[in-house]
């Protein structure tokens, strides 16, 4: 067990929220086609309110603090917020599109010793990247921002969200990351809108494209190991927790709403009305999330992929049931291994049954009442 895993386990045992993502705004200068947010300002927390929340988070034992948005630099007080967070000794990670990072911002982030800055880059080609952000010139500006950060010694992670629109550009983005001295990560997950609208999912990779990506060693490392059939499901696996959401991590919106995770929009309290620690300890919603083990999942507990599936409880929740399957993760498990999931087989059975009922209804004698 690594030291990090050891500390995470200790946090879990003690009920400590070791990692929190705080979105400081939903406003953004880009309009990414796949974004799950409503970018209007519905009453963001003030600077002092955020300072108060940060005080509470430090008191609660939070170590990893991710500041994200929206675009964080849409807030004029963002560097003050980072400064305050660092004075409380958080390990600060920032997510930004880097469009608004100039010399001053890069230098300040370096002085404040933030852990890393994650920047979303969709393509090394401006035509593709800018068509996703819907902001002309955005790739050029983001790359310029990254260069400034790197020149000041700030660690940068380029996050490459894969979707149909940019599915052939990951190699180019990876090369760009190398050239810039940045780390590179990919993520093929498109998240439904926070209001439940799932229309954006159509932009995501389909199974054939996932299969191609998962067999590309440049992207995922050892493809043979990554795509290996899942190991047998044991009793120990059934006791496992789905993920850190609600257990050692949570998410706070710009309006003070607390959720188990940014991808798990189950309202669990609001720091404008309650103390953070009261929400963390006593929220019925968070306690329900914590009570669920793999063995409690009616479909997934009977699935052969249970031991290795990346099932996201938040995506399952947005699909209608936090104890249900997450179809997107079922597709990933299938794309990796070629083995159908319990959820896929259930849907196929339902479709067949549904077809039989329709046939039966068509064959049934009609009432003569008309």
């Amino acid at each position, binding site marked *: 067990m690594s*030291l*990090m895993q*050891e*500390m995470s386990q*200790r*946090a879990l045992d*003690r009920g*400590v929220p*070791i990692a929190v993502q705080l979105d400081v705004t939903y406003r953004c200068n880009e309009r990414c086609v796949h974004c799950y947010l409503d970018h209007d300002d519905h009453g963001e927390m003030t600077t002092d309110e955020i300072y108060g929340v940060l005080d509470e988070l*430090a008191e609660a*034992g*939070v*170590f990893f603090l991710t500041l994200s948005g929206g675009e964080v630099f849409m807030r004029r007080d963002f560097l003050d917020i980072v400064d305050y967070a660092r004075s409380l*000794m*958080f*390990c*600060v990670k920032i997510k930004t599109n880097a469009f608004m990072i100039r010399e001053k911002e890069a230098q300040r982030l370096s002085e404040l*010793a*933030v*852990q*890393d800055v994650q920047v979303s880059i969709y393509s090394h080609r401006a035509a593709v990247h800018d068509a996703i952000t819907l902001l002309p010139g955005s790739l050029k500006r983001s790359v310029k921002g990254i260069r400034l950060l790197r020149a000041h010694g700030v*660690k940068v992670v380029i996050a490459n969200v894969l979707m149909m629109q940019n599915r052939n550009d990951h190699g180019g983005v990876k090369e760009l990351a190398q050239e810039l001295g940045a780390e590179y990560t990919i993520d093929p997950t498109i998240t439904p809108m926070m209001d439940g609208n799932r229309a954006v999912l159509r932009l995501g990779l389909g199974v054939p494209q996932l299969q191609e990506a998962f067999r590309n060693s440049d992207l995922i490392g050892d493809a043979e190991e990554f795509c290996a059939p899942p190991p047998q499901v044991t009793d120990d696996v059934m006791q496992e927790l789905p993920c850190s959401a609600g257990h050692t991590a949570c998410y706070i919106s710009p309006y003070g709403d607390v959720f188990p995770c940014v991808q798990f929009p189950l309202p669990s309290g609001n720091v404008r009305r309650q103390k953070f620690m009261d929400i963390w300890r006593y929220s019925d919603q968070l306690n329900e999330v914590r009570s669920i083990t793999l063995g409690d999942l009616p479909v997934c507990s009977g699935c052969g992929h249970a031991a290795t599936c990346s099932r996201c409880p938040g995506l399952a929740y947005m699909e209608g049931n936090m104890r249900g399957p997450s179809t997107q993760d079922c597709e990933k498990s299938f794309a990796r291994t070629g083995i159908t999931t319990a959820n896929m087989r259930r849907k196929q059975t339902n479709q067949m049954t549904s077809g039989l009922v329709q046939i039966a209804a068509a064959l049934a004698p009609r009432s003569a009442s008309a």
Partner: protein
Amino acid sequence: MSALYIARATQVAARSLDGEMMIMSAKDSTLFTLNPVATLIWQSADGHTPLAQIVEQKVCAEFDVAMDEALEDAEKFVSDLAAHGILLASDAPFGSATATQEGAR
């Protein structure tokens, strides 16, 4: 022997978890954890109190350990953390004109 003064580096993240300090260096993302004695020294590293005084008044007062032994261990601990840039050490109080830092690079 001259006094040794210690101060927490500002380029790190730190939080106490269950009485033990977690520290991450921004420079190389290395994670450290300190045992309760080391945590007490870290928390007392205000840049103005000599290490010997911290050991005598805090460590020896709270833990069942002899002064000589505790001070020797503390000096080694300070040297290790200073080498990683986690702690700053100087032969004069921090902020004074004569402070010479070790481990500040």
